[in-house]
């Protein structure tokens, strides 16, 4: 195991090598997990402000300048609230579930490359790690629903798990497109592979699929069946109060922004933009791109009505899954053929814009073709159902 930077300094200062490694790794872990913890405080404020503006309100504006400190006030309120554990609950699991839920989101940040030089760890299997860690969240929700010993909580958990497990399929298929294009699962290398062309131009369909399914994974509208207030009281977290509820809440808020960051890394070139060699500027580009995507997510959340559970499932299994498989097959086939023909470079990180351009155009056109086919199919289905309704109405009118 190598020992650079702080670890080396400690080891030279007379600390045992193993201990020095441990201390430097521990500080690194604390720093990397500290970033999301601080971010989420301001994300909650941003989310409330944006939601308020969309709904023609002002939003929090009393505590601190522009209401910036509102979240701290809420935090204190949550902390001093009574912490209720239902008598019939499974105490251990009931208390562990919020922690696992929050941890599953924070763990994703370990592989986020903030700048070309600053990241928690550059795993060879970064993309797979993301999928594996995100699946912990499903288990946390199931545990929370069951351990609460409440029928609404359990019903909510069942719904959520059905939703999360289903939407993981298009999510992973969409994730595989950038992985396949870059030829690596490491997040840093995926960014470098986009140095001459962002993957969003090569496969916009994959980007849209990833966006929709990650929106569903976070349980945001139009897929907010997780806490369908009007049907399930509050869903799986009905029995939770105080800071334990706050942790589920914070996990959800953080997850939305984390998805923005992942989308940026996978499709929008991460910190790639002019002057990215400078760490601070690179960090600013990443944050800016992620914030735009985050804003779009909030925009959708606050303007789209909730879908029914059967509609959500139908949308996934009959629309997203087939399209994502089709898209993946098309990209895999076309890239391989173009590489054999010499139209596409084998190493995207070293390729110039001119080398990448033909490949980008062909892949983009294939995506457009899939989208046109899909829209045509949707159109014919819509027309049929409209005709059926009209015929039925005419029949009733004649009957009268």
């Amino acid at each position, binding site marked *: 195991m190598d020992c650079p930077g702080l670890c080396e300094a400690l080891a030279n200062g007379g600390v045992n090598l193993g201990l020095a490694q441990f201390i430097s790794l521990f500080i690194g872990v604390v720093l990397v997990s500290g970033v999301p913890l601080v971010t989420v405080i301001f994300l909650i404020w941003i989310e409330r402000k944006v939601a308020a503006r969309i709904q023609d309100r002002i939003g929090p504006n009393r505590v601190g300048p522009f209401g910036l400190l509102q979240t701290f006030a809420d935090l204190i309120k949550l902390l001093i609230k009574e912490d209720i554990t239902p008598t019939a609950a499974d105490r251990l*699991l009931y208390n562990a579930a919020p922690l696992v839920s929050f941890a599953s989101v924070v763990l994703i940040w370990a592989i986020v490359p903030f700048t070309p030089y600053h990241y928690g760890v550059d795993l060879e299997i970064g993309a797979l790690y993301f999928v594996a860690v995100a699946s912990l969240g499903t288990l946390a929700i199931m545990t929370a629903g069951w351990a609460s010993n409440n029928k609404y909580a359990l019903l909510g958990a069942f719904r959520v798990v059905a939703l999360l497990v289903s939407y993981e399929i298009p999510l992973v298929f969409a994730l595989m497109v950038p992985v396949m294009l870059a030829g690596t699962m490491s997040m840093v290398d995926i960014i470098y592979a986009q140095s001459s062309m962002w993957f969003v131009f090569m496969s916009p369909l994959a980007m849209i699929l990833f966006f929709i399914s990650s929106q569903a994974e976070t349980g945001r509208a139009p897929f907010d069946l997780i806490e369908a207030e009007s049907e399930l009281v509050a869903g799986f977290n009905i029995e939770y109060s105080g800071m334990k509820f706050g942790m589920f809440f914070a996990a959800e808020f953080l997850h939305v922004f984390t998805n923005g960051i992942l989308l940026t890394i996978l499709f929008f070139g991460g910190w790639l933009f002019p002057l990215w060699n400078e760490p601070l500027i690179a960090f600013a580009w990443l944050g800016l791109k992620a914030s735009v995507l985050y804003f779009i997510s909030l925009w959708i959340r606050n303007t789209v009505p909730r879908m029914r559970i059967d509609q959500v499932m139908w949308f996934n299994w009959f629309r997203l899954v087939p399209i994502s498989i089709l898209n993946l097959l098309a990209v895999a086939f076309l890239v391989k053929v173009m590489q054999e023909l010499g139209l596409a470079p084998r190493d995207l990180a070293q390729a110039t814009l001119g080398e990448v351009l033909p490949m980008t155009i062909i892949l983009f056109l294939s995506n457009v073709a899939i989208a046109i086919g899909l829209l045509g199919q949707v159109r014919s289905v819509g027309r049929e159902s409209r005709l059926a309704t009209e015929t039925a109405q005419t029949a009733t009118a004649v009957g009268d």
Partner: protein
Amino acid sequence: MEFNFITVAFIVFSLITLGGAIGVVTCINLFRGTIWLMVSLFGVAGLMVLLSAEFLAAVQVLVYIGAIAILFTFAVMLTRSITSDKMRFTRVWVNVISAGILFVLFALGVIYPVWVANAATHFPVTDAGLATTTDLGVALVSGSQFVLPFEVAGLLLTAAMIGAIVIARDADDEGN
């Protein structure tokens, strides 16, 4: 066995693995048993990281915690009334003793070559030329290596999925 970071990690992950396993076989509440199973398999994933098989560790977390855990929780809940099963064991002491004897036999089999047999069975551990995830990926689809088992595995999974759906489906559904 020198005392360093890796040794500590090994001890921690071993305790998680074995503790979780004991939780699985002794729990009264089966939902908790599922959680214990996940704890145990998470420990195994940690041990795999120590064995520098990160890819397998990630697959372990994904397959077991992401898929099989959810499957088990659903099975536990669909077969109600078993979440608090008072009759946990049959013939508990006979089984404890037989499992213990099995462990002693295993331990003898493991330790005998280490101390008694000659050093020829001991291979030096190297980091050089360690097979990577890329090598594994290439091997799984290259015609000269594992492409046939890979395809058979895909077929097996499809067959298992269809079989599971057919078996678990309610017979009454077919009329509708």
